[in-house]
């Protein structure tokens, strides 16, 4: 495609592309996100494509390989427009039926429709499904409209409309004021007001400035940044262009983990396509504004999501944080003023410029505006990516969207914000998803991870898991983080293995406070949160481990024993054949017995037993 030299040429291109697509009657949108790809959506895509061309439908039906639709658990997912028909768990063998019946005849295939996990009802359209219905999908809903590898799709969908607006007309100060009055706060974890960050960066005197997109998402169980970047990279790029224009940067970086190969690939393609059209490079759309973006791949260190460590990594140094007494908006990448924002923050920017700050601020609470993407995982019926307005209660997310506990178990807690966040108990589920509300309760929104836990989860085990994660991922530079996390883990391990003493709880609290106040970077400062929040809300569980030497959830191996309930055991022998340690003995049709000496507490027998006879005490 030829280079675009003005705003008018961009609009011409948009109109021409729309005209070309006028004779398309049906669009088949197959999810090609990482989640669906792991459930073999590539084979589905190939099968549908072959089927369409063998039926001669290439011209009238458009096959769109999109980014993630959010409901990853149901993958591979297909949506067919018009009709908004939603098929899930599609296999390549279904391609013929989908094309012949739904695309050509308009009939719905009952068996591929989504069956609700709660009511058992089948829903025909995406909009009806409770998982989607309760959401407010401002960013994620754009994913299904575009093929991330085709800039044309993004332009047809109305993309790159904010860019000409900031190039001709709105002054940088006005852009920043618009972002400030929208009340956009950083989606990466800290919740720092984006407008203020941009304002400080704009005012910092320098001939060279940078903007960076932080796509180094590493929280266990969270993948919203990956989903946005690999599903709609042009949206992020456009946001970065607006930001660069506002702060006066000529160069940008997308720092993306190498473990996200599809995000790396799609963002590279997007940058090349934008360069080809002249949307990146010198004199963008004939203006005096020049801006280019490079992709920097991260090696997967969690600490490199911290701003100064990330910048050190881009500079080619070891990814270690440094003291931030001078902020990165003044002294950042290559010691130049740098604006660093998360993927989701950048993705919010174009819509604010297009629709105005009051549109953005119409959703949300007093201090937290707009929507937030959450990664809902754990012991819950519906898992996936969820976008809700700020101010939605945790209860709505967990029960209305998530459908409640998996296997009918009752839910005990939710862990928000990844390793830096905290656990909130069931009686705090009415709290709103809001930066300040959650921070006050001892947790945080963080990047948006939301792990749901039920009665079979031991909170000490959770704290131990996150401390182990942080111990591995700490850079080891400063004493409180390196030794403090190590000692906290040592104490919790003592408690879970039955060597705990009550005075250790006070020590744990004091140590956690010291680490959070004295650590060098954000990772260390928030590292004690999993310990502090579980201590605050689940202290009886800690005390049970120490005083009674019992694990109420039946998880901590040193404190539990397996035994067979003689009233329930039918002597079927399934557990005997399942036990790899040969710890179970017993004759057929007679009650079996577990040898406590040999038992390794692996839990295989318990999951194999159909009569619920194996109990944990």
């Amino acid at each position, binding site marked *: 495609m030829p280079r675009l030299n003005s705003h008018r040429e961009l609009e011409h291109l948009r109109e021409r592309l729309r005209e070309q697509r006028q004779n398309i009657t049906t669009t088949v949108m197959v999810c090609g996100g990482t989640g669906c790809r792991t459930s073999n959506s590539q084979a589905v895509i190939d099968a549908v494509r072959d089927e369409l061309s063998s039926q001669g439908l290439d011209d009238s039906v458009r096959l769109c390989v999109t980014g993630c639709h959010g409901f990853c658990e149901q993958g591979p997912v297909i949506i067919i427009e018009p009709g908004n028909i939603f098929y899930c768990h599609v296999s390549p063998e279904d391609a013929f039926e989908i094309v012949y019946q739904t695309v050509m005849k308009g009939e719905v295939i009952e068996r591929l429709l989504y069956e609700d996990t709660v009511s058992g009802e089948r829903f025909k359209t995406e909009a009806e499904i409770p998982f989607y219905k309760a959401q407010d999908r401002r960013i994620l809903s754009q994913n299904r409209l575009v093929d991330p590898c085709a800039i044309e799709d993004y332009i047809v969908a109305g993309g790159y409309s904010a860019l000409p607006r900031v190039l001709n007309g709105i002054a940088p100060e006005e852009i920043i004021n618009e972002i400030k009055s929208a009340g956009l706060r950083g989606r990466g974890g800290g919740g720092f007001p984006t407008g203020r960050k941009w304002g400080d960066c704009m005012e910092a005197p320098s001939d060279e400035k940078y903007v960076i997109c932080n796509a180094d998402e590493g929280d266990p169980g969270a993948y919203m940044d990956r989903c946005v970047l690999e599903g709609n990279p042009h949206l992020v790029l456009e946001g970065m262009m607006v930001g660069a224009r506002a702060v006066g940067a000529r160069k940008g970086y997308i720092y993306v983990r190498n473990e996200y190969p599809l995000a790396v690939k799609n963002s590279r393609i997007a940058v090349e396509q934008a360069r080809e059209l002249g949307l990146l490079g010198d004199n963008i759309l004939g203006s005096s504004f020049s801006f280019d973006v490079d992709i920097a791949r991260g090696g997967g*260190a969690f*600490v490199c999501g911290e701003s100064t460590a990330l910048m050190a990594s881009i500079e080619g140094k*070891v990814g270690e944080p*440094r*003291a931030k*007494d*001078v902020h990165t908006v003044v002294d950042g990448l290559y010691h130049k003023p740098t604006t660093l924002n998360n993927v989701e923050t950048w993705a919010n920017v174009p819509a604010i410029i297009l629709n105005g700050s009051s549109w953005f601020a119409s959703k949300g609470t007093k201090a937290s505006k707009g929507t937030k993407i959450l990664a809902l995982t754990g012991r819950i019926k519906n898992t996936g990516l969820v976008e809700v307005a700020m101010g939605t209660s945790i209860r709505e997310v967990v029960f209305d969207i998530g459908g409640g506990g998996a296997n009918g178990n009752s839910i005990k807690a939710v862990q928000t914000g990844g390793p830096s966040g905290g656990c909130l108990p069931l009686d705090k589920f009415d709290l709103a998803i809001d930066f300040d509300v959650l921070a006050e309760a001892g947790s945080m929104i963080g990047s948006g991870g939301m792990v749901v836990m039920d009665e079979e989860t031991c909170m000490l085990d959770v704290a131990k898991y996150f401390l182990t994660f942080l*111990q*591995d*991922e*700490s*850079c*080891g*530079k*400063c*004493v*409180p983080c*390196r*030794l*403090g996390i*190590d*000692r906290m883990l*040592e104490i919790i391990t003592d408690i879970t293995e039955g060597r705990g003493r009550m005075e250790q709880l006070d*020590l744990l609290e*004091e*140590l956690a406070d*010291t680490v959070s*106040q*004295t*650590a*060098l970077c954000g990772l260390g400062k928030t590292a004690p949160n999993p310990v502090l929040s579980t201590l605050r809300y689940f202290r009886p569980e800690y005390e049970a481990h120490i005083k009674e030497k019992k694990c109420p959830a039946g998880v901590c191996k040193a404190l539990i024993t397996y035994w067979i309930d003689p009233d329930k055991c039918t002597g079927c022998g399934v557990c005997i054949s399942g036990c790899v340690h040969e710890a179970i003995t017993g004759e057929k049709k007679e009650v079996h017995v577990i040898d406590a000496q040999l038992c390794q507490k692996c839990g295989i027998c318990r999951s194999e037993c159909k009569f619920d006879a194996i109990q944990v005490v």
Partner: protein
Amino acid sequence: MLQYVNVNIDGATVRAPRGTSVLDAAIEYGICIPHLCHVPFLSDIGACRLCIVEHVVNGYSKVTTSCTLNVEEGMVIRTNTDKIRRLRRNLAELLVAQAPNSRAIQDIALRCGVKEVRYPFRNEDCVLCGRCVRVCTEIWQARAIGFVGRGKDRHVDFPFGIRPDFCKQCGNCVQICPMTIPPCDGPMKPGKEYLCRKCESQLIDETPGSCSWCKLGEGFGCGRYVGV
């Protein structure tokens, strides 16, 4: 020309050239802030965190390390509040539990008010203060040693574990190491895991508000000694 700024440290107005760290300015005026990884003429990395101070801005106090904080006009610093003493003591306790045989660490711990250590002792020889790495990199430009590994596995080593030709064998890394002071003969015999309290700092019960030119400072290269 040097530009001077006025900083308020513990109520005293201190005049220091722009660009100096709060730690240097305080030591210059005899206000002692315990520190381990800071060495004059080397860059500061803020690793040991012992030199933490409260930086009061608009009524809010922020805990930060004084070695990485540069002086600014009108800055208000508190080096010796209850909170700082408590945090510093906890940090020193972590350090001394890691390297209980080091005289320098024992001295610092005692001076920071550590009376008992609530963690099981470990017998590490290195607390990763990074003095050796920085002297090799910055003064000798040799880069013969560096940090290897991450988190718990972090340690100081040669590249690929083999002494390279560009190591000039100057021995500065050894001289500057706080562990090279002859170790205490008191502590850490099996079963006797306690602080011996035979160090020079035994007479000082609490962290002094002003520098006492302690013998200890000479031992591990306190800025007061090396700097003057």
